[in-house]
């Protein structure tokens, strides 16, 4: 459960970062169009929202919310460290994380 949430949170944060000019350039070496930027922003917020339910179903609200915030910290830290050093890897990790997200939930 915790891993599902982490994967979705990472993908969401990545989309949010790519919606910003500075980080879009870091990865694609060009600025995003206004439309792309807006879509990425929505996708990002959707990802963040979707990363909450797994923690809450696993732990309840009282522990689920702090756990979710902690997972966001971990996912964002990974993204922040990857973006300047390996922007391509940061990008590829996004879809990979989304693909992996359902498995921990199915396992337990």
């Amino acid at each position, binding site marked *: 459960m915790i891993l599902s949430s982490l994967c979705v949170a990472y993908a969401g944060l990545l989309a949010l970062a790519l919606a910003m000019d500075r980080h879009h350039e870091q990865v694609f070496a060009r600025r995003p169009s206004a439309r792309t930027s807006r879509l990425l922003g929505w996708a990002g917020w959707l990802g963040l929202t979707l990363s909450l339910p797994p923690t809450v179903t696993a732990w309840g609200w009282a522990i689920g919310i*702090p756990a979710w915030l902690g997972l966001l*910290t971990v996912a964002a830290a990974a993204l*922040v460290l990857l973006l300047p050093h390996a922007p391509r890897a940061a990008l590829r990790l996004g879809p990979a994380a989304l693909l992996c997200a359902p498995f921990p939930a199915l396992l337990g």
Partner: protein
Amino acid sequence: MKDGFRQSMAWLHSWSGLLLGWLLFAVFLTGTIAYFRQEVTVWMQPELHGSIPDAGTAERAVERMSQLAPDAAQWTIALPGERSPAVSVSWRPADAKPNDRAALKRATLDAGTGAVLEPRETAGGNFLYRFHFELYGMPREIARWIVGIATMAMLVAIVSGIITHRRIFKDLFTFRPEKAALRSWMDGHVAAAVLALPFHLMITYSGLLLFMTMLMPWAVDLAYDGNRQAYFAESGFRRAPPPPRPAPQAAPLTPVAPLLAEADRRWADRGGVGSLTVTNPGRANATIELRPAESDSIGRGAATERLLFDGVTGRAQEVPAADPQPAAMATGNYLMGLHLARFAGPGMRWLFFVSGVAGTVMVGSGLIFWVVKRRSQRGRADTWGNGPEPFGHRLADRLNIGVVAGLPLAVAAYFWANRLLPAGLGERAGWEIEVFFLAWAAALLHAPLRPSRRGWAEQLWAGAALFALLPVLNLATAPGHLGNSLPAGNWLLAGFDLTALAVGLLLGFAARKVGRNAFAGKTVPAPVLPAGAVVEEPT
């Protein structure tokens, strides 16, 4: 006008952060390790590493207790779990006063055999835990006030820092290690602060709440005419359970296995049974109380779910319902419960640990940034202050070395002392702590004797070596080394060794960067800033 406001906030942020920053760094670092204080203590007691729990552990422990303390008023048996391989037991002699904690007798049992173990004397993770809010070697109340004042400075630094930085979401993912020193330190500081901001706010405010009656006694003393005990009683804290009253008739204790089986089924997702409390063992009115390993409620003082059984018939009894907490106490207890994280299972515990590391990095990078910024203000592209430097900047830099690089070194030295001091040494726990402070004092003395860059590099290398070699030390001095712990899936011990190795590698990475002068910025000289300018990049 607007910029003036932000500049004074920047000023407040840098000074409230700097003056208590060294203490805050120590509090954050030791507090972060304290999230794993049980695990640290287990690592520091190799005599426990051979203890392997099995299905009969709990029964064996109960049987052993009936030999060790047949006449005790109460037994408490903490079963092994993910945080400890051995059984910790304590008992209250029949003649002890009800609330006298000092009268409790303690022992550690081997989970596989039930034998009483004699682990080496050590303060273990508890020393680091206590240090993070009571320091060491000074009256407890004074130390708590000092830490409380530092915590308030932290809160002021967080609020003024948020106002100063303003563009929190815009810069959320920004880290530019390739840029000039000034900018990359700034990025690192902001990232560590912002990415774990909810944690930092929670840990700081709840830190104040944990001392609230000491720091802010005025409301209590006014409303209760100075009678704090009346306040504690009325607000539902420290309500002592009624003392055990053993019945005169003896009666054999019911077999615990069926009770444990029922509880384990019920708490399958909570790590099963964590502890048993047997009250009036061997008497007609004996009771057995079971608690789960992982609590589902965070709040301090909140009632955890438990099961109560008649100790003679084994019949389930009704658990008296805890009074619901009023909203105010529930809120405060929730925050303090998060701070202490006693409820946390392994996954949550790691999240708290990582957030604590972020806090430590935030304070450390802030301290370093203070010096780096002043060096660049003096128009030097070189970060190391090799030329003439004002005494205050020099002092801050050398304190940074002795604390930011020196304290990890001292923590590592503490772990080394644990294994190198003879196991039977008298006052052994005290000697381990002595080594910690000697190593730290050496680091603080070493720093002013060396040029800045060399001082950083040497202490970081020393810390890196001490941490990275801890798994080797463990291999040489204890059976629970990686070669055994990994194949056995013993994540408690393997986790300590692997974390030490990772910390060593990180410190080594930092030392190498310092050695290559990478932090000074390669080609881009640090911008020369007017005094008092707010560091911020134009958008």
